């Protein structure tokens, strides 16, 4: 069951939640819609489910245009962030709801409910009320309820967002196992990059209502299309004008050619990890250009690294890097790094493509020898 989303736009008043979304979601796979809160991913999921109407654009499910089909006729299982359990029904009543409103025979419903409760490991709770279940159990029940109607498509809106870290981790492993058993096309929304990378076959990064990048988790991590994607999928720091992941930096205690010299200004330990803040020589004292380096605690100890010590940094071979200008380590545009330029402005002269960086969405640059033309309002010069 593949989903084809074409030219979808959605605004709430003045706020553009989604801008011209074009996306194909493959059959039989788990796809994650990943992005920051308020980025439009939940809105997109609700449009696919028919719980929200797009202002323009179409959604087709397996070739059939469903844009104007009401939610109840789409045969889509939907799991809500806050469970949306039917409080007055027992666990079995909740799971059987979709079948019962279709007037299926009682014994068929009972058999199906039993089968699903076994699948979600809640068979001993069939006669309890949802208020007697824990959050994780309620969400498993909600999932069984959604699966009971044998949906062509399963949509989950931040399904584990309201659960604590440990339960969340268990449930996402369990969701992956469940999918490998059932093979129902699944789309889930999350703002947790670890969840997306761990569970999904395919990740769609959505930010400010647009699709930033689509691909398998490994591709997104190794070849991010933009500084935003790189910053969102993991920690990022700046080393010598390049964005780089803090664990892709090699640290030396003696000078090396090409390596950046600096001083450790802060050393933190978080579990197995040592996090060092290295201030490059001659850099500002406010810490704005400090380089973050992550290494294992044991390695840090073997090098004998302490605060105040001088070190030399260089990128590891094959490390993922992107030009840093215009983007801070948090993945957000940082205008301080260069001077903003106006739309359509010609920046002729000795510039090369390396000197220009966009602010993710609104900047496009045409390069020609000796000339760079900027489009959009969010461009900076490095």
């Amino acid at each position, binding site marked *: 069951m593949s989903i084809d989303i074409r030219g979808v736009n959605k605004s709430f008043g003045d706020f553009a939640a989604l801008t011209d979304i074009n996306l194909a979601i493959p059959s039989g796979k788990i796809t994650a819609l990943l992005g920051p809160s308020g980025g439009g991913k939940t809105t997109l999921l609700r449009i696919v*489910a028919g*719980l929200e109407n797009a202002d323009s654009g179409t959604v087709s499910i397996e070739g059939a245009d469903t844009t104007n089909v009401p*939610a*109840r*006729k789409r*045969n*889509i*299982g*939907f799991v*809500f962030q*806050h469970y*949306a*359990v*039917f*409080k*007055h*029904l027992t666990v079995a009543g909740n799971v059987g*709801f*979709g079948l019962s*409103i*279709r007037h299926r025979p009682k014994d068929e419903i009972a058999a199906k409910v039993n089968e699903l409760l076994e699948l979600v490991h809640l068979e001993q709770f069939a006669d309890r009320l949802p208020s007697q279940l824990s959050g994780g159990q309620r969400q498993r029940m*909600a999932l069984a*309820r*959604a699966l*009971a*109607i044998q949906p062509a498509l399963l949509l989950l809106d931040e399904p584990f967002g309201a659960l604590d870290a440990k339960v969340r981790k268990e449930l996402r492993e369990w969701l992956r196992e469940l999918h490998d058993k059932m093979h129902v096309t699944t789309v889930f929304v999350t703002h947790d990059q670890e969840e997306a990378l761990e569970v999904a076959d395919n990740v769609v990064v959505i930010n400010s209502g647009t699709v930033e990048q689509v691909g398998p988790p490994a591709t997104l991590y190794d070849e991010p299309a933009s500084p935003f994607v790189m910053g969102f999928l993991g920690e990022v720091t700046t080393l010598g004008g390049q964005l780089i992941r803090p664990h892709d930096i090699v640290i030396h205690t003696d000078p090396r050619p090409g390596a950046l010299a600096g001083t450790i200004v802060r050393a933190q330990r978080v579990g197995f990890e040592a996090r060092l803040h290295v201030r490059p020589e001659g850099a500002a004292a406010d810490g704005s250009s400090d380089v973050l380096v992550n290494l294992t605690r044991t390695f840090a100890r073997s090098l004998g690294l302490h605060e105040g010590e001088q070190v030399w940094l260089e990128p590891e071979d094959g490390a993922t890097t992107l030009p840093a200008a215009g983007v801070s380590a948090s993945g957000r545009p940082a205008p301080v790094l260069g001077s903003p330029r106006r739309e359509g402005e010609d920046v002729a002269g000795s510039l090369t493509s390396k000197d220009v960086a966009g602010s993710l969405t609104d900047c496009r640059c045409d390069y020609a020898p000796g000339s760079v033309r900027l489009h959009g309002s969010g461009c900076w010069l490095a």
Partner: protein
Amino acid sequence: MKWALRIFVILYVGLLVIWPVYLVGQRTFEGGWSGIVTALTSPEVLHGLRLTLVATFWSVLFNLVFGVGISLLLVRKEFRGKGVLSVLLDLPMSVSPVVVGLALMLVYAPDTVVGRFLYGAGYQIIFATPGIVLATTFVALPLVIREVVPVLQEIGDDQEVAAQSLGATPWQSFWRVTLPGIKWAVIYGVVLTLARSLGEFGAVKVVSGNVSLQTQTATLVVQDTYQNFQPETAYTLSLVLIILAIACITVVSILRPRKARKAA
């Protein structure tokens, strides 16, 4: 201080509620059981009670159906004039029932456009049972709505959306999800409507014409018999009305903690 407060409360409630109600009971039994039986079997009393029950039945039914419907409209839909509607729905509670009766007269009396039209079509509203039902329904209008609206707001529309995604039609979603969720509020609102309708006097007096054995409800019979020097009948019927009211209050107080437990 604690004792002073207790004595004050006892005196206050005693003088306002307990003592008067007790005296009604005492006067009722002054003539012994035979007096009570005579009073209760008199044609005016039987007719009055029957008419009150009829008016209460329709008032509860109308206010149940429209109360739940309007509550859903107010909470789940956005439309122009919602604030105005909300204020209008409180009006019957804040305006004196006599004024309500007079206002209904202005619309439905036989010499008005609407009244003449309805009369021509064979329906008499004023000075007849339909007018009494109308007046009773009007004064009890907000009771169901004021109970149901906050509960609807509290439970939100999550469950309704979930039902919809599972294939439920709006009708199925209402019966299987929304109604069970607001059940206790609806029952509570109905009991309050019941009590209010049984005791309605002012509006009904104006629109009914107060004709003995025709358009006199129980409360009107109480006033009529009292003024016509049949106090024992008035007291007996009053006690019946008090007992009905206490029954309503008891039902409410039994339901109330269950409702609280549900919400917790």
